[in-house]
């Protein structure tokens, strides 16, 4: 719920800066390691945006996958874990942020 709330607050702030009357569509990138369920986020966004100029706006969620790779042999993995079969340390990059990329409005 706190992500939906923060999403709405950021959207409304931009909308106000631009003098928008209505928010039509929002594109947000969500790192998959945040383990946020897109349906749940969409639902929560619908709930918190009720009664605001973002009510009924479309929410497009783009999932961003982390790069999970062995620092020694370079092998890539789908899910994070610590040590590769080769003994190398596996590094995890990205997949932990949630970023608004686009806001479509009517002015």
């Amino acid at each position, binding site marked *: *719920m*706190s*992500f939906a709330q*923060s*999403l709405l607050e*950021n959207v409304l702030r*931009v909308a106000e800066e*631009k003098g*928008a*009357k209505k928010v*039509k569509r929002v594109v*947000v990138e969500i790192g998959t*390691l*945040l*383990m946020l369920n897109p349906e749940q986020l969409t639902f929560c966004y619908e709930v918190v945006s009720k009664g605001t100029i973002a009510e009924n706006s479309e929410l497009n969620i783009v999932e961003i996958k982390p790069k999970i790779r062995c620092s020694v042999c370079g092998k890539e993995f789908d*899910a*994070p*874990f*610590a*040590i590769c079969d080769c003994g190398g*340390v596996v590094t*995890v990059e990205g997949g*932990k*942020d*949630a*970023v*608004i*990329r*686009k*806001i*479509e*409005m*009517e*002015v």
Partner: protein
Amino acid sequence: MHKIEADVQLSLLEENRKYAGENREFLREHGVVAFNLMGATGSGKTMLIEKTADLVSDKLKIGAILGDVAGDDDFKRVTKHGVKAKMVNTGKECHLDAHFIHHAVEEFADVDVLFMENVGNLVCPVDFDLGEDYRVVVVSVTEGDDVIRKHPEIFRLADAILINKISLADAVGCDVDIMLRDARRLNAKAPVIKMDLKNDIGVENWLEWFFDAVERAKKYKSV
């Protein structure tokens, strides 16, 4: 009316990052070493504070910020052990965040160690840096031996993993070795400590890591 598009780059975690940075700076200035205690409801977070306070209070002044959905039970408990405590009721929120505890942190300039007991769950607290030096996850055998595998992120990012209530493992049919193996698979750096806070098992291993962690952190703080 016409349509406009704003291309932006606004992180939803930015505000938390900012306050976490301020908390971290405040704690650094005052030489306070902070531990973010995470774990499911009932895993033993408060008991860890109580036990640690009993064993180190001759050397270190302990503080605790207690995040709870409601009630002041944990506050009353730790206060009895000489811990300077502050309760923050989170209401519906399922985790502490850096902004939420910002003012509370400022009341702890005079302690050596600050425990931040997070809200009891293994999912939501993980993405909210509070400004701590260390992240400690307390998990108990009663949560089932697959609990670590089911919550990889919190264990992957932990600085110490405590497997608590091991005396109950047989009774609840929990294979502690599975938990150990899963923890290791996700996190090669954090110590994984088997303990039972109620029966004083493993407490010395925890204290060894704890004192070492406090010493290491003190080195990069001004006091």
